[in-house]
């Protein structure tokens, strides 16, 4: 049946075609947000985002830029396809016809778990997507020299790159013909090996939860190496119920003192079997940036924060921000396997609503 349709639509270019010679980085980005099966993919000319929400409380978005792909072509569907008499007049749900000046986007919904499973069909998408410490540049404070920080990571990544260089890579080609068509994936290991063709069913995108973060009202902003946060969170017992982030303004004269009365950044965890408090020292090697105009204290459900652990684990740097309503934004900079520079570094963002302390 599909073939018959193909003939007819040959003249219309696919909405999206992209290809990659190594899927590991791409799949690690997707796995970072893989906690609910339905994901909304929003395609634009400069890349696409994959967004997942749960319990109307937490949303996770992977920003995947076009230049991580070897090839990336987005041809927005024509608003009113002339050769199509039987199709609906407005085929793509997102671009409002009233604002033609906006960059066109196409939204669709896919079963993300299934998509990742298809991508990893040869079991080759798992290998570490490199821990290149190059990622930090963007969030480094201006004027700071490229010191030892992240250097070790960078070296390790380079060595890793050297060892994995001769390894067989799995490439893929992804295309999407448009609404009502599946997202087609072609995955191949090498010329001699098998090829997999997966047609992942797409659904009409439903409006996603929007949690706007007001960056003008940021009450806490911390940038740190992901490993510092990962180590802290991995210490927590799985029975942890509630996680509280406490921030206090740094005292100017006391930059190096570790025994400040009020911790500059503290993570408190409360669970069935007790509570844990972890304080971060006011040390630039640990907390690269701290912006905290006044003391803050917001709590989140651990089961929600734990959704971010996978993305945290494969990221290089983390930016943790909380706005005055307590909305938490965690941005994870995902190190790309190749040092590419520019804005191509993909990242994954989690936004999570706080627990309402008044109830």
């Amino acid at each position: 049946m599909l073939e018959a349709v193909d003939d007819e639509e040959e003249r219309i270019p696919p909405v999206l075609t992209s290809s990659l010679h190594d899927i590991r980085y791409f799949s690690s980005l997707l796995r970072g947000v893989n906690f609910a099966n339905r994901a909304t993919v929003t395609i634009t000319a400069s890349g696409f985002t994959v967004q997942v929400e749960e319990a109307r409380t937490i949303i996770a978005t992977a920003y995947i830029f076009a230049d991580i792909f070897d090839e990336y072509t987005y041809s927005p569907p024509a608003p009113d396809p002339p050769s199509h008499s039987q199709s609906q007049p407005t085929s793509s749900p997102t671009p409002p016809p009233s604002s033609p000046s906006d960059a066109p986007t196409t939204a669709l919904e896919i079963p993300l778990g299934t998509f990742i499973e298809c991508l990893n069909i040869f079991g080759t998408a798992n290998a570490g997507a490199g821990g290149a410490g190059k990622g930090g540049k963007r969030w480094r404070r201006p004027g700071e020299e490229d010191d030892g920080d992240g250097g070790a990571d960078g070296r390790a990544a380079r060595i890793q790159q050297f060892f994995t260089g001769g390894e067989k890579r799995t490439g893929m080609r992804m295309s999407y013909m448009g609404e009502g068509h599946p997202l087609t994936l072609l995955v191949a290991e090498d010329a001699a090996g098998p090829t997999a063709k997966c047609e992942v069913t797409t659904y009409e995108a439903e409006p996603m939860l929007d949690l706007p973060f007001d960056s003008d009202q940021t009450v806490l902003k911390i940038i740190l190496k992901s490993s510092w946060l990962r180590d802290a969170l991995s210490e927590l017992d799985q029975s942890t119920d509630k996680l509280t982030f406490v921030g206090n303004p740094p005292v100017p004269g006391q930059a190096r003192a570790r025994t400040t009365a009020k911790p500059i950044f503290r993570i408190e965890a409360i669970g069935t079997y007790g509570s844990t408090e972890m304080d971060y020292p006011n040390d630039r090697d640990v907390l690269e940036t701290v912006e905290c105009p006044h003391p803050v204290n917001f709590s989140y459900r651990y089961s929600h924060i734990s959704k971010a652990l996978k993305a945290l684990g494969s990221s290089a740097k983390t930016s943790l921000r909380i706005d005055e309503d307590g909305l938490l934004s965690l941005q994870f900079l995902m190190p790309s396997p190749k040092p590419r520079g520019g804005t191509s570094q993909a990242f994954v963002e989690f936004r999570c609503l706080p627990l309402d302390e008044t109830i």
Partner: protein
Amino acid sequence: MRFRATIENVDTFHRIIQTVEKLQKKCIIKFGESEMHIICHTDESGVQVWSQIRVSALFTEYRIQSNSRNQIALLLGADALSAALRSAAAEHTGAEAVVMKLAKKRDVAVLSVEIFGASRMGRHIRVAHDVHIEIMKPADIDRLKEPLCPEPDIHILLPSLVKVRTIVEHLRALSDVIAVRANGVGKLQISAATDSAKTDVMWEGCTNPKMGAWRLAGAEDEDEQEKPDPEQLFGVLVQTRSFIKFLNAHIVSNTTIACICQNHCLILYVYIGEVADAGGVLTFYIPAVLDD
């Protein structure tokens, strides 16, 4: 009834039993004068294994004697035999000889696996594993019949089972039933289709072995005429779980021929050792899942 043999090829025997063990708790081993058969035919998924192994491929000093045409059939726990063979195969025991024999201990029939080795200090060690067995009556043995299958529509040499297994394990996450299809020009396809995704994994350039020796020459010619289009895919739907059970045989060998009886069953011949010098073959029958 006497039976005694030295297991020369402990590793291979162990791997065969490991494969069987993953399929079914109990299995039947039928020893004959020049061949042994391992049979699993009661798995609830319908998968059956009928294997035929040349005695000389595994054993030396093989002696067998019984009242029923010098055949002995045993029903035993595959896990127990596997455990005995594991210890015999383990390097640290330094096994010099492994002897398997039929014995009676406290009025219970056992298959005794004796391992003669030496400790690091050079002392002789003898380890014996007794596997409880049930001797089968000749009448029961005669009642065992291999499943009858129609002439397969297609024969194809499978790619490395390890690789196939990785892929099928990922397909398992997608679907409980997979389709195995092949054609006469070396194309093999394993597919899973569900509401959320349709996945086809395709191999090209597989070998279609000539299975002429298994048929009458005349019948083959007829077949060629019947199948004018070698491009046509023949397929069968099987339980993903059953297929994975078969894929556990990857430890035995890397040469496997799949035979597809369209919409009936999938037959897999796993050769022990190289095909040219095969010590035997494990035959898996996987029944088809009938869809729609």
